[in-house]
């Protein structure tokens, strides 16, 4: 049973005061102060003057040409930075002078880890190139991270340089290809001769990554270079027929997803001591070494797309 409280009484209760305080009313005006506070002037002119003064002060401080203190500070700062660099180099040289000799076989680096990679690498991974076997099978987690570094770098470049839904004129301003001579005969002829071998060589490097020097990364970079040359000779409208932003998105997503999923499978089976069940094939054959072959192709696709995308973004800011 709650009884009704009169308006007067209610105004004296704590609840009302709390509510009033929450509503932003100052309940102590006139009760606490000895005399009413002088109204705080928020003159537009005064605040503008404040801003102006601040700005002038800042300009005075950072007018480096005419501010000797700032100049001296900058000089001292640079001097210290330089001394720090010298100090760093000296420390590093000291460290190096105490390290084991380069090229000798009995450094601590040449231990059981490298031994197993070399002696059993062929049987355990199926890759003739031990380096490929190492980065894509023994230490695959690093490489998984590495390809995502490339991906995330592409995304930051997209954030910075992609231009969406802008006016045609403005877009053309950033597209510097418009200022170049078009259809250069020499360039086009050279490109016609060179691009197919470059791309084929890139594909070869990717596919034979487990058999010889090379692999997804270098092959992808070579293909990317070929694409860049093609684009330079024939212009964007030719390349856009087969390579657009959408193609890149789909390609890189499917390659990275394939990479992540296959590694997920092999990590999961490895950690739970299950058989992976992927045949390694005969070492030396092109279809061998299990997942490494697939992963090389994935990495190659991602890298080729990424390199080309970097270039296009730098040139034009959009496909």
């Amino acid at each position: 049973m709650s009884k009704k409280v009169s308006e007067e009484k209610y105004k004296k209760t704590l609840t009302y005061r709390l509510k009033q305080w929450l509503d932003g009313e100052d309940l102590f005006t006139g009760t606490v102060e000895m005399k009413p506070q002088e109204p705080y002037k928020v003159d537009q002119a005064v605040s503008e003057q404040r801003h102006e003064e601040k700005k002038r002060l800042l300009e005075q401080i950072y007018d480096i040409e005419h501010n000797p203190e700032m100049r001296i500070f900058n000089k001292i700062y640079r001097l210290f930075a330089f001394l720090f660099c010298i100090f760093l180099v000296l420390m590093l040289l000291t460290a190096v002078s105490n390290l084991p000799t380069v090229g000798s076989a009995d450094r601590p680096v040449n231990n059981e880890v490298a031994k197993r990679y070399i002696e059993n690498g062929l049987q355990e991974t199926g890759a003739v190139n031990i380096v490929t076997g190492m980065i894509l099978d023994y230490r695959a987690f690093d490489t998984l991270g590495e390809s995502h570094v490339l991906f995330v770098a592409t995304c930051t470049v997209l954030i910075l340089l992609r231009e969406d839904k802008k006016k045609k004129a403005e877009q053309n301003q950033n597209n510097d290809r418009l200022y170049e001579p078009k259809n250069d005969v020499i360039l086009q002829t050279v490109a016609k001769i060179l691009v197919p071998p470059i791309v084929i060589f890139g594909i070869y490097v990717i596919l034979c990554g487990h058999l010889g020097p090379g692999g997804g990364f270098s092959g992808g970079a070579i293909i990317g270079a070929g694409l860049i040359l093609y684009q330079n000779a024939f212009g964007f409208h030719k390349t856009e027929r087969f390579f657009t932003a959408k193609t890149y998105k789909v390609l890189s997503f499917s390659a990275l997803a394939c990479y992540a999923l296959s590694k997920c499978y092999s990590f999961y089976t490895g950690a739970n001591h299950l058989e992976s069940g992927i045949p390694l094939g005969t070492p030396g054959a092109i279809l061998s070494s299990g997942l490494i072959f697939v992963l090389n192709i994935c990495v190659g696709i991602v890298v080729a797309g990424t390199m080309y995308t970097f270039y296009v973004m730098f040139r034009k800011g959009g496909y």
Partner: protein
Amino acid sequence: MQVFMKILLGFLLVCAISVSLSKKLLNSILIFMSYSLIMSIIWILLESPDLAITEAAVGAGITSVLFFVTLKKIQAMIKSENEEGEDKDE
């Protein structure tokens, strides 16, 4: 072999120092490109052909191209600022 290595390392140092001291940006980029090429030869001397291929394709190839494109964009901007645009050779 040893001598060759020493010469190449000397070149590396010269390139690195002249990059920092050169006045024109285009020059420093070109010197950096040759730095990468020397590096890829050193990788071969160090018996790492994988690295040599990658460095040649990436360091001397793609990275330098990106540097050139950047420089070109910047110069295009300078040109459109001045609105003169007489010499077109890059």
